[in-house]
């Protein structure tokens, strides 16, 4: 990480990162990829999201499905932990709750690989500033 010497360097870095992020979800962009976000706040971890995170990372790699798996903070659905959010390129993010290993496997095989609609979706119920 290089030191930012001025506002200009901060602005330039921001533009670069924003563009990179946008590319991730654009369908026909060569940089696009499936994004998997796993809630890793205390409630998530206490409900077992660490094994889910590891599983998603390992299995997606093993099954040759390129994806970016990252940890995020609390999405607010503490009653449904572990929760994960999947964004397929060009599509809106979809959130799943009560994700066990078995469910994670189903999500990979049916939702991600085959694009099927499966149960367990938690509807998004907020706007973000």
């Amino acid at each position: 990480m290089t030191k930012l010497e001025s506002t200009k360097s901060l602005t330039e870095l921001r533009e670069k990162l924003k563009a990179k992020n946008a590319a991730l979800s654009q369908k026909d962009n060569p940089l696009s990829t499936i994004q998997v976000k796993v809630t890793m706040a205390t409630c998530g971890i206490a409900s077992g999201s660490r094994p889910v995170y590891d599983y998603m990372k390992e299995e997606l790699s093993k099954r040759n499905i390129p994806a970016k798996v990252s940890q995020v903070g609390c999405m607010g659905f503490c009653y449904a932990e572990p929760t994960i959010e999947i964004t397929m390129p060009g599509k809106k993010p979809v959130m799943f709750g009560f994700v066990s290993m078995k469910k994670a496997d189903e999500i990979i095989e049916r939702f991600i690989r085959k694009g099927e609609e499966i149960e367990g979706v938690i509807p998004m119920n907020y706007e973000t500033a």
Partner: protein
Amino acid sequence: MAKQIRIALRNCGVIDPERIEDYIARDGYMALATVLTELTPEAVIEILKKSGLRGRGGGGFPAGLKWEITRKVQADQKYVVCNADEGDPGAFMDRSILEGDPHSVLEAMTINGYCTGASKGLIYIRAEYPLAVERLKTAMAQSREMGLLGDNILGTGFNFDIDIRYGAGAFVCGEETALIHSMEGLRGEPTVKPPFPSVEGYLKKPTNVNNVETFANVPVILNKGWEWFASIGTERSKGTKVFALAGKINNVGLVEVPMGTTLREVIYEIGGGIQYGKEFKAAQTGGPSGGCLTKKHLDTPIDYDNLIAAGSMMGSGGLIVMDEDDCMVAIAKFYLEFTVEESCGKCSPCRIGNKRLHEILGKITQGNGTMEDIDKLRNLGTVIKDTSLCGLGQSSPNPVLSTLDNFYDEYMEHVKDKKCRSKVCKSLMQYLVIAEKCIGCTLCARNCPVNAISGERKQAHFIDQEKCIKCGACMEKCKFNAIIIN
């Protein structure tokens, strides 16, 4: 439009809190950059004042005004403190912000330092939040590495750095003067205000103490403008509030709603209603310092002033939902138990008064309450509120007074009828055998730990109320539903 708008939580669940790049990609540190290069401290303070941001820790004091007060004091050293103690049982808003978006707090503290003239920030965080501490430390290290914290921030010559201080489990250390004394290495006891910490605080220097959620709102207000923030909420309570929904509600979790949202919308639309289809009874806001909102308050728009008018307070944002199976007298007793344990003991009204309040509630829940006790509760509660040294004592009788006002008939049932309609107060419960249903299998008698049940085989059994310890084992074992709680 969605009922929730995430402003303080804008990055939680979106970014990886351990990657500063994620924060920067979402306009992170832009507010700081703008402030340091284009705005005077007075201009920033003016923006905050116009936005109407009020302290989210519970006090609701206008943030811009607090920053201005510290700015105006002449001193050779000033401090910015982030109150991350979050002592209210059931509250986890601040923890979530610190675990999910720690940079927003760091950025806001640095902006505060620029405005107030402080060069040092301190985050007082409860030691029971190890993950939040870890994420804060990672965030601080990354920030320093990128020149966004420490010396010569962004090449502007402005110096500001932050240190972490740990709480040691005392609820009273969420009170700002007790917090400051705890950081000074003294016992966490509050001191009289004035002088207010903004003028004379940590090590006797001007200290600007703000809550985590208050800070989380600052960068986005500066980025999107005070008009945008002020367009959300009610006339005197702008913006949103994060609530930690807990208790007997289906969708337990964190919600962030514009001020003015009604309790009904929070509980039924966002919260998914009461568990198991039970009936809503009350919602406790403000934790041990707050009161209950009942069915008649369901359509009250939630904001600072309305909650105080309803006999409660916003508090830090804990919202505990209770249903028909909760006993309001037992709830008041539970909160008093907490406050008695947490009272620092410095002033008599709180130290002695709360203990007496707790004892009286104990008498009532055990079936020994009298009408004089009810009068005493009210009088004593009012005196404690008026004469305690700090906010802990000044608000500890609130659960009692609020439940007395809203659930007087429940208190009467406990005192006059010696009954607890929610079947919570064990001393007021009787386990009874319904003779018509009992076939005399003797299973209950054999499982009673104190041999309180007598009866011949194939004949209706009988429970001796004097011996019965209300453990419920008999009812659990009975296969014929012949034992009930009266």
